[in-house]
């Protein structure tokens, strides 16, 4: 958008030559108000309104304040949250490795492989995550027996597998798009230098996809982390399950909203920097590849 206050620095300067840039001060008032900082302020204000009355009550003197209770439960809840983080990291890792592989198969020259990979990708990309989790819990046995050694397979590992499936499918799509977005000239020059298709892929094409995939991939991680409380439904002791346990142990109705808000803020603090960084990277990489 043309900004009139920008003085021409070069002779022959014309507004049309300026890079396209959306500037907040060029937008209508309503759009200017709707930005990240005002939103954050709004959320915090809402939180204050919700928590405020709870603090104001402070009930009878022998009852502990809500703040005390939250602090008392913090170590336990933190352990649960650590579990969420662990599950998200592991699912992301496994899902990404499988997804990159599947994405490469999606651009295979062999039609059958290409189409099968496409089918798998589409299937898992369009399945509800919770249903996939249930499937993993039901289909995977609770322990494996290999050469007489019993290897237990606890629920949280099944949850990791369940969540890695959609990650795989999304990564696969990201990879397919990124690979196809690399100019064909790269393939041709590699071919004329004697690279085989596989070598071209690993040495030339895949390294170039990293920049293209990274922003969406990080975004996916943030989404995945926010979806990890789903595992509480299938009986994994994550932060959500522990919060519920804490609430029933305390048995105080006025604790409900503050405690969930407390957990919500943890997720916010963990995921917000990731999505901010994603935006930074998006801006950085979108200029020139």
């Amino acid at each position, binding site marked *: 958008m043309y900004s009139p206050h920008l003085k021409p620095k070069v002779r022959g300067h014309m507004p049309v030559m300026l890079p396209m840039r959306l500037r907040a001060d060029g937008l209508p008032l309503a759009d200017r108000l709707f930005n990240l900082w005002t939103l954050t302020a709004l959320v915090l204000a809402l939180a204050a309104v919700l928590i405020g009355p709870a603090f104001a009550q402070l009930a009878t003197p022998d009852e502990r304040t809500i703040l005390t209770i939250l602090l008392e439960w913090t170590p336990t809840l933190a352990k649960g949250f650590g579990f969420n983080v662990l599950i998200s990291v592991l699912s992301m890792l496994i899902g990404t490795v499988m997804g990159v592989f599947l994405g490469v198969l999606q651009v295979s020259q062999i039609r059958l492989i290409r189409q099968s990979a496409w089918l798998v990708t589409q299937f898992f990309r369009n399945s509800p995550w919770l249903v996939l989790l249930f499937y993993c819990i039901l289909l995977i046995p609770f322990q494996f027996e290999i050469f007489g050694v019993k290897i237990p397979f606890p629920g949280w590992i099944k949850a990791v597998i369940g969540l890695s499936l959609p990650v795989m499918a999304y990564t696969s799509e990201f990879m397919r798009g990124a690979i196809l977005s690399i100019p064909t000239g790269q393939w041709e*020059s590699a071919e004329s230098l004697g690279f085989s298709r596989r070598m071209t892929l690993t040495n030339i094409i895949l390294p170039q996809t990293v920049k293209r995939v990274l922003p969406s991939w990080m975004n996916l991680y943030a989404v995945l982390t926010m979806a990890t409380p789903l595992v509480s439904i299938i009986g994994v002791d994550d932060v959500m399950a522990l919060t519920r346990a804490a609430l029933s142990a305390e048995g105080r109705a006025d604790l409900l909203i503050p405690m969930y808000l407390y957990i919500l803020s943890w997720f916010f603090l963990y995921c917000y920097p990731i999505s901010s960084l994603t935006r930074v990277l998006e801006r950085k990489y979108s200029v020139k590849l």
Partner: protein
Amino acid sequence: MTWTPQQPIVSLKDVHKSFGAVEVLRGISLDVMKGEVVCIIGPSGSGKSTLIRCINALNDIQSGSITVEGLEVNDPKLDKLALRKKVGMVFQQYNLFPHKTALQNVMMAPLKVLNQGRAEVEKRARALIAKVRLNGKEDAYPGELSGGQQQRVAIARSLAMNPDVMLFDEVTAALDPETVKEVLTTIKDLAADGMTCILVTHEMGFAREIADCIYFTDRGVIVESGPPATFFDNAQDPRTQQFLAQIL
């Protein structure tokens, strides 16, 4: 068939190539001897680029035969690597690997494809970069180089494979007028060293100066060919005359 230097190093016989229903090459025959510099000129869409890409097996052909040092390019059992070691190619859009520095771009194929030793490859790569007059730009990424510099890195990258024939596909068409000269100088140096070069070009002055033989193609056939002096000053075919009148 074993190849001897007395035979053409590149030989095309009645080559036909179609993209779907469109016949792009309609019976092309030409011979290039070792050390010769051949320029292919002609209006756009006349099949020049396709012709040169077929020599490198980037496009397959429907009928006819292409041999490079006796290797039958169109043979389905062809060892592509053997062909690519003999033939280097430079493209209009440079096609450097953007995630690698100039030096790494030059070193990559000998290291990964030929599995040669790093120290020796690096020495040769530095020498090649000096040869294309880019000393000091070894660690620059393609994005930091001008078009002409990128194109010269691309030439060095092709030379790193020690080819016997170099193909240039309109290598100056995407360049600024000032940088065209530096790339042409590089090609001239190469030709002076005795490299066999096949160029598709729109630089008529350059073609006249450097070529041993000029081929004029139009609508998939070679209309006229000959040494530059005869070709430019004494063209016989009316189509050639018309083309030359338009561009000269």
